[in-house]
């Protein structure tokens, strides 16, 4: 009688709550996971300036001097400029469609020099750099659309077309703190 009963019950572990446990763990990891994408403004720094390695001579017209003070006021080649106008002015300077004598000889020669006061907040500096990057991006997009019909970022990475456009409008940006 007793034996028969045991046989019928079987010796199984109840596994129905396993799914619940797994779900609980799953929800924990779902909540704690932060898929953080790192985004930012990419730059390549120039090598340090030493006596053996002086900075190359630059013609005045090829350099756009941008001064930003701690209050966020901007001077572009001694002219007060609103931040909303910076991008258009930069594009004009780099591209120089009318061959103006005071603007860059060619986009390859153009240098954007960004100078800020020592106590400028990082936020203002990045806003400024963002505008410079924006100007270059718009120029590259325009060139890419004219030549290949797509925007610059849609060109496949490490392709010849991409390198060509990047060479057409190289980002030559010099960053310095104003000496007091």
């Amino acid at each position, binding site marked *: 009688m007793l034996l028969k009963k045991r046989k019928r019950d079987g010796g199984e572990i109840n*596994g129905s709550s*396993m*799914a619940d446990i*797994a*779900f609980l*763990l*799953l929800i924990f*990891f*779902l909540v*704690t*996971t*932060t*898929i*953080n*994408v*790192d*985004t*930012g*403004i*990419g*730059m*390549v*720094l*120039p*090598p*340090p300036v030493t006596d053996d390695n002086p900075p190359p001579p630059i013609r005045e017209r090829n350099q756009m001097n941008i001064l930003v003070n701690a209050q966020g006021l901007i001077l572009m080649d001694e002219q007060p400029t609103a931040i909303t106008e910076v991008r258009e002015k930069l594009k004009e300077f780099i591209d120089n469609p009318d061959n103006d004598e005071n603007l860059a000889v060619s986009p390859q020669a153009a240098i954007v020099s960004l100078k*800020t*006061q*020592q*106590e*400028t*907040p*990082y*936020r203002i*500096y*990045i*806003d400024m*750099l*963002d505008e410079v*990057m*924006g100007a270059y*991006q718009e120029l590259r997009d325009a060139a890419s659309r004219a030549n290949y019909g797509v925007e610059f970022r849609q060109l496949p990475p490490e392709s010849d077309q991409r390198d060509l456009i990047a060479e057409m409008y190289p980002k030559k940006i010099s*960053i*310095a*703190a104003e000496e007091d």
Partner: protein
Amino acid sequence: MAGHFKKKQAGSKQEVPTSAMPDVVFMLLFFFMVTTVLREVTLQVKLDLTQATHIEKIEEKRLVSYIYMGPELLPGRELGEDKVQIDDAIVEDIGSIRNIMYDKLLEEPKMIVSLRVDEDSEFSLLSSVTKELQEAGTYRINYSTKRED
């Protein structure tokens, strides 16, 4: 006849087999366990990133080495002076950054330095850190920002 039909329907149970559910859930669980990256450093400086529009993603995350800059977090929710943090420690001597970064560069020649700077910190600190990076030869940098909406 009608009664016969009814009986048959009631007899055969219409159940979805759930025996594979734990396996499915475990698979999902493992996926999330593997992809989860727990924050490896504890920040000792306040860090509110600024926003920008023309930004790019860093695709190769294993190449990235971080430098944090911002006001030091002091006990009692107070903020100290602007400090530089690399890995888990605050670097007091700015001049030693070049050695730290140079050592890292030897380990990973294609290193990208991600500068995570608090939006209110002053440019002078960033400028001296950038000079150190130039001396160290770590030329690829990235000013970390959030995406502007």
